């Protein structure tokens, strides 16, 4: 199942990053403007985006396609519009990179999906409670693992993987709850 720009917009709406008009503009004009803004405003933004893509490739189900494009567009806007989130993610990335260097002598974003998953597990993020100000495991869970999981399973395409095309957090209208399951 292929993730699209529409899914990224939906995920951003669900995450409260953009509203109706913002979503329409973003869908129309693309993410380049936010991407540029993000690169200019925050040191290390590109590295955070790369790490979020690496996390998604490790934790998304195998049948999802276009993970890179989806997460890059989602993350560029999120980081541009949420400076507090970007600052917290930058701190958590330092710990994630440190673990990657210990294990594979490379920064996290340079790892392949299997290696990324190994590093994520070694931080303890798989079973950690998410906490933006907690331990390394809790911060990695919050800023990386849960961030990309929320983007996926809060979007229509991610919801459809499970059987719900209007997942909680997505403004999918008031038709879907009435539809028969065979539609």
């Amino acid at each position, binding site marked *: 199942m292929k993730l699209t720009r529409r899914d990224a917009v939906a995920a951003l*709406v*669900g*995450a*409260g*990053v953009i*509203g109706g008009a913002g979503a329409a503009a973003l869908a129309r004009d693309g993410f380049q403007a936010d991407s540029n803004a993000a690169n200019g405003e925050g040191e290390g933004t590109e590295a955070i985006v790369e790490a979020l893509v690496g996390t998604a490739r*490790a*934790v*998304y*189900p*195998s*049948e999802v396609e276009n993970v890179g494009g989806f997460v890059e567009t989602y993350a560029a806007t999120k980081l541009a519009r949420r400076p507090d989130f970007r600052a917290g993610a930058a701190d958590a990335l330092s710990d994630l990179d440190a673990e990657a260097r210990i294990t594979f002598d490379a920064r996290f974003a340079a790892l392949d999906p299997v290696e990324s*998953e190994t590093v994520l597990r070694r931080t303890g993020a*798989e*079973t950690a*409670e*998410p*906490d*933006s100000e907690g331990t390394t495991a809790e911060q990695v869970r*919050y800023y990386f*693992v*849960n961030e990309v*999981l*929320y983007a*996926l*399973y*809060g979007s229509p395409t*991610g*919801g459809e*993987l*499970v*059987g*719900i095309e*209007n*997942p*909680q*957090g*997505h*403004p*999918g*209208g*008031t038709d*879907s*709850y*009435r*539809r*028969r*399951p065979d539609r």
Partner: protein
Amino acid sequence: MTAAGSGGRTGTPDRTPSPRVDVCVVGAGPAGALVASRLVDRGHEVVVLEAGPRFDRADRRERMERSIRPAHGARSVWNVGGERDAFTASGERFYPLNVARVKGVGGSTLHWQGMVMRLHESDFERQARDGVGADWPIDYADLRPYYSEAERALGVAGDADNPFAPPREEPFPMPAFSPSYSDSLFAEACEEAGIAMHSVPNARNSQPRDDRSECVGYGTCQPVCPSGAKYSADATIEAAESKGVRVLDSVPVQRLEPTDDGERVGAAVYTTPDGEEHRQEARQFVLAAGGVETPRLLLLSKAAEHPDGLANSSGAVGRYFMEHLFAGTGGRADRATRQNHVGFNTSESHQFYDNDFEKVDPIKLEFLNYAGPSPVEMALTADEWGDDLLDSLREAYGTHLAMGGLVGQLPRARNRVALDPTTTDDHGNPVPDIQWSLDDRTRRTLAKANDLQAQVFDHLDAGVEWVVGPENTGPAYHHMGTTRMGEDPDESVVNPRLRTHDVANLTVASSSVFVTSGAMNPTLTIAALALKAADHVDADL
């Protein structure tokens, strides 16, 4: 007067008192908002004092994210908790007060479900009809026109298909939401079980109305509706402010100060965020702070002429606290049930409300559209990821069905809101102590509700996986009864005009005046009573 400086969205708002106004309303929830709105329409000068903050509408999507993502405590969505909201629950049962309320402009309608039913005629006459509880000093006919006005004020989507509802004189303001797919599964089972289903009146827009969106299906009604389709009282407050009502936020009222002779309230004493104390004087005062803070404020307002608390010569302030109890049954079917697309219900049954069961109170049955887990919430708390997580989500989601139900408590003096002098809030005031217990009659009614739910599940081809009933029930977060209405000043706090027996210029607009609880969600009745109270205050000015 204008709203200038009263709630400025930029800079520090002016929170100094106005020169003596016509009406001072304490609380900016639905009751206070409707009172203020009606009285400004009648040409009166109104100041509203709200303990909590203003919440920016633009933040609602972020609040929704907080509600879905597990890193943020549920109470953080609307900033509930901490020293400001400290409480004690010393009764037989713990009472989770801070789950039940929001302090801020809009009050608890910011996080409510939005179900708005009228009480039945029988709810006003439980003693006369059934020999239990007490009778209200007003009846359904007295409230009936106010119910219609309340439905228009809140914006109710409903249908006249409910054969068990009390008589009504006009259609609902908006068409009802259509039944869900899972309702259709229940409909087959209910047909076989001899149970009639019908629509649910919802205070949420089924079409654009009052500059608010129609519902767009975020599915997070409780605790936050990002689209604004669900009614919340901040909308009424904003409209009232545009007409000249002055609203001060973050100014908890510490006490109501009676005049020297104790006959009237002279001022509401409040504090500002910078710690200053002010007095707002008014000709009339309306207390609209909900079923817990309303009696608490009266108890905190002791004075020479009111040694047991303001307006408490009866001793009834804080007593007769009532709640609705939840009865539920859930399980899984052998087919898809399409849950969690929306966060509200579209079908109920009031068939067993005015029942003739032996020693059993009214029962309201609900058919849930949000049974079982939400996949996104489940994913965010899982201890796995990748294909394993997707497999678990597919296994967990999709075939759940559940029924809910409400059962009311009868009024009992021992259930009460008192003050706990051993614990104080952020202003040094004793916190509320909720002394709450369940009685056998309520348990019996819960068991009966479970029996009815079991009959439906027997016809559903669905296995029952959980039951919430007499042994593990919990409250529906509807506080009622703590300044009860009545004709007798020795047994009640307010009269049928909602004015306190003891204090001539003090009115209460709240579920605290309910004499019985019924088993219907209380907000529409709160709204109707608020409009009635406003009419009486207007007449007295």
